C-alpha cells in the first residue's frame, strides 16, 4: 500500500513515521509545508492508495486521485472508501465497543486532552499522571462521553463499565498519532468504516503500534 500523509505541521510527520513500520505499507510520503530528511516529500498527491490526515482534508484529496482516505474526522458520506473517527474519542468508543462485545455494559467513556483551561461539573478519575479532572458531557453520541482538559502534553482515554475500568494514558501527540494510524487496519474496498465498528482489529493494530492499556478492576 502506498500511503500519503497530509502534513500541515511538523507534528503530523509522526503519522508518516508510524506508517513506515507497517508491513503492508510499501511507500510513505507526505504533502505539505514541513521538511524532513527521513520521510519522502511529494509535490502532488498522485500515485498513492491511501491518503491520511488528522482533519477532513484527506477525503477531498483521496477523491482527486481515486484513493482511500483515513481521518480522525467523522463524516457520514464519503466520495471514497474511508476509515473515519480515528481519534482519541474513536479510540474510546472502540474500547467501549470491545467491552460491550464481551458482555460488559459500558456506562461512560471519558477523554482528556490538553486544551484551553476549562472544566465542567462531571468528575472523572483518569489514571496517573492525568488524575482527577472535571469535564463536560458531549451530546448526541451512542454512549455517555465526558471530555476534560488534561495537563499540557498528556492525554487519556477511559472506559467505565460494570465492574471494570480500562484506560490508556500517554503523551498526547503519541496517543493521537496511534489512534489515527491504527485505522490503516480497517481500510475498506468501499464505503465508510468507523474505527469502533471493528474494535478488535483496530485495537490490535494500535497495540502493535505501541498503545499500552491498563485496567482497574
Amino acid at each position, binding site marked *: 500500500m502506498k500511503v500519503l500523509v497530509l502534513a500541515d505541521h511538523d507534528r503530523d510527520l509522526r503519522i508518516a513515521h508510524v506508517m513506515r513500520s507497517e508491513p503492508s505499507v510499501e511507500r510513505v510520503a507526505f504533502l505539505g509545508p514541513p521538511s524532513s530528511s527521513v520521510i519522502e516529500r511529494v509535490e502532488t498527491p498522485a500515485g498513492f492508495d491511501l491518503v491520511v490526515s488528522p482533519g477532513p482534508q484527506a477525503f477531498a484529496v483521496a477523491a482527486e486521485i481515486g484513493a482511500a482516505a483515513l481521518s480522525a474526522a467523522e463524516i457520514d458520506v464519503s466520495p471514497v472508501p474511508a476509515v473515519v473517527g480515528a481519534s482519541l474519542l474513536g479510540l474510546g468508543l472502540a*474500547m467501549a465497543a470491545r467491552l460491550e462485545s464481551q458482555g460488559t455494559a459500558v456506562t461512560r467513556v471519558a477523554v482528556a486532552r490538553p486544551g484551553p483551561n476549562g472544566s465542567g461539573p462531571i468528575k472523572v*478519575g483518569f489514571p*496517573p499522571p492525568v*488524575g*482527577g479532572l472535571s469535564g463536560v458531557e458531549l451530546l448526541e453520541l451512542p454512549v455517555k462521553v465526558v471530555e476534560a482538559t488534561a495537563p499540557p502534553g498528556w492525554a487519556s482515554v477511559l472506559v467505565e463499565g460494570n465492574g471494570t475500568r480500562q484506560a490508556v494514558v500517554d503523551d498526547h501527540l503519541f496517543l493521537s498519532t496511534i489512534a489515527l494510524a491504527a485505522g490503516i487496519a480497517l481500510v475498506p474496498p468501499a464505503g465508510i468504516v468507523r474505527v469502533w465498528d471493528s474494535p*478488535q482489529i483496530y485495537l490490535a493494530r*494500535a497495540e502493535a503500534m505501541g498503545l499500552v492499556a*491498563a*485496567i482497574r478492576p
Partner: protein
Amino acid sequence: MKPLPIIIAVGALTAVFATLLQKRIKENTATEAWEPVSLS
C-alpha cells in the same frame, strides 16, 4: 470578642480548610492500582 473564642474559631476554620485541601490532593494524586491489560 475575647481572644480565646477568636483563636478557637480560627483554629476550627483552619482544620476544615486543611481537611478539604487534603481531600482534594488525595483525589488528584491517588495512586490507583492500575495494571497493564491487552486489548487484543
